[in-house]
């Protein structure tokens, strides 16, 4: 078996989805933990310092390249699989099986993934581009802040500016809901694709997956909400 045969086989393609999926799950932990610094109620000092650390540390910048490779692979492979799988049944059923055998979100991973991708485009435009590339279009980076005589990019102020708009907050919450359902199936499914069938571990993964899919997107969703309604000082 050649490497090409492995990665173009149906199981191999799913293996890539699972591997990139698990690494994206790991990224979410870092992302949500770091952003939770906004609740320190110190006018964003802890958060800005943390963001500065992430942006200025070479190891993390290299990991960021890995993250982008992973996410692009996950997107491309996801599209390929979705189209491929859809082409396997040219004539559909008059009466569909529907929810009698599976959960709606497990059958809608392509749709949920597309919603997350649309969210990501907006999200990258809002925060990543201004912080990394100095901003484009109407979102210009705000003047830097000074902590202990050192200048920091004021990402916190940028969050406050972006989340002034209720419309943007609603879009972010919808993005988080899509993520929650995507994870609710994806977390468990990734481990199954990687070959986990030992019941003792399956139970742990299932429970962790449900908890993760609720806690992480909920925490993310609370960020724009608490900024918009001024719950953070």
């Amino acid at each position, binding site marked *: 078996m050649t490497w090409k045969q492995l990665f173009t086989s149906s199981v191999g393609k799913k293996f890539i989805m699972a591997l990139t999926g698990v690494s994206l799950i790991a990224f979410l932990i870092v992302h949500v933990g770091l952003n939770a610094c906004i609740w320190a109620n110190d006018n964003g000092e802890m958060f800005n310092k943390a963001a500065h650390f992430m942006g200025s540390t070479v190891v993390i910048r290299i990991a960021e390249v890995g993250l982008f490779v992973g996410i692009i692979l996950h997107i491309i492979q996801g599209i390929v699989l979705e189209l491929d*799988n859809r082409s*396997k049944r040219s004539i559909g059923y008059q009466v569909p099986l529907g929810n009698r055998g599976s959960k709606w979100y497990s059958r809608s991973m392509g749709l949920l993934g597309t919603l997350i991708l649309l969210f990501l485009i907006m999200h990258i435009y809002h925060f990543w581009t201004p912080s990394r590339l100095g901003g484009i279009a109407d979102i210009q980076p705000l003047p830097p802040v000074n902590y202990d005589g050192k200048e920091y990019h004021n990402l916190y102020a940028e969050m406050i500016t972006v989340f002034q708009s209720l419309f943007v907050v609603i879009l972010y919450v919808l993005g988080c809901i899509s993520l929650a359902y995507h994870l609710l199936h994806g977390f468990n499914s990734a481990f199954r694709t990687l070959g986990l069938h030992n019941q003792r571990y399956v139970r742990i993964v299932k429970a962790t997956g449900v908890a993760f899919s609720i806690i992480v997107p909920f925490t993310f969703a609370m960020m724009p909400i608490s900024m918009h309604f001024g719950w953070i000082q």
Partner: protein
Amino acid sequence: MEHYNMNLTLKVWKQKNKSERGRFETYHVKNISSEMSFLEMFDVLNEQLIEEGKEPIAFDHDCREGICGMCSMYINGRPHGPWHGTTTCQLHMRAFKDGDTIVVEPWRANAFPVLKDLTVDRNAFDRIIQAGGFISVNTGNAQDGNNIPIEKEKADQAFAAAACIGCGACVAACKNSSAMLFVSAKVSHLALLPQGVPEKKTRVLNMIAQMDKEGFGSCTNTGACEAVCPKEISLDNIARLNKEYLNAAAVIDK
């Protein structure tokens, strides 16, 4: 359970041959006993059609006791009908009420082309088995059964997987038309037993390669297959198949 008779309306897929487009036809059957099996109800309908000089409906069946895997009707949106863990032939008419309309479709998957009406070509499954669903042993006198010790739990799991009758309901139910539950049952049943170990790597690689070649989709772990399987094959087998496949692909030296 009380016996009763019923009148039913049936919407059945009619298709002359592989190339014709096909359409739904509506039929009415009267005085169907609740004690009849679903296939016996079809026999009554076919007798009626023959008497009227019309062509009977073609459908697959053989043993009619739930073990051969030939019957294959997609009844009211569910393979093998509404009962859990039941083949079409073991589905009885007491599952329905007087006046019900029942929609009957063939398995839908490009890998299972419709041959005529409700009959589909499931040779793809046979070719997957031929690709590796066997063990190679020299024939001769059978050795003593206790020569090879087998852990009871593993023997049970292997037996549960071997219960797969290859009917194709998993493919019919899967949104991706994936055959993974079938292949995983066949791989698991041999991989769990000592006799299956020598060929376990080539078996799983060849069977998956054949599965992909036949045009089945990939597994997205939705669990629809497990829910409709008349033999209640567990989704765990798919995870085991993934493990067997990835392990074999990682170390195979050719």
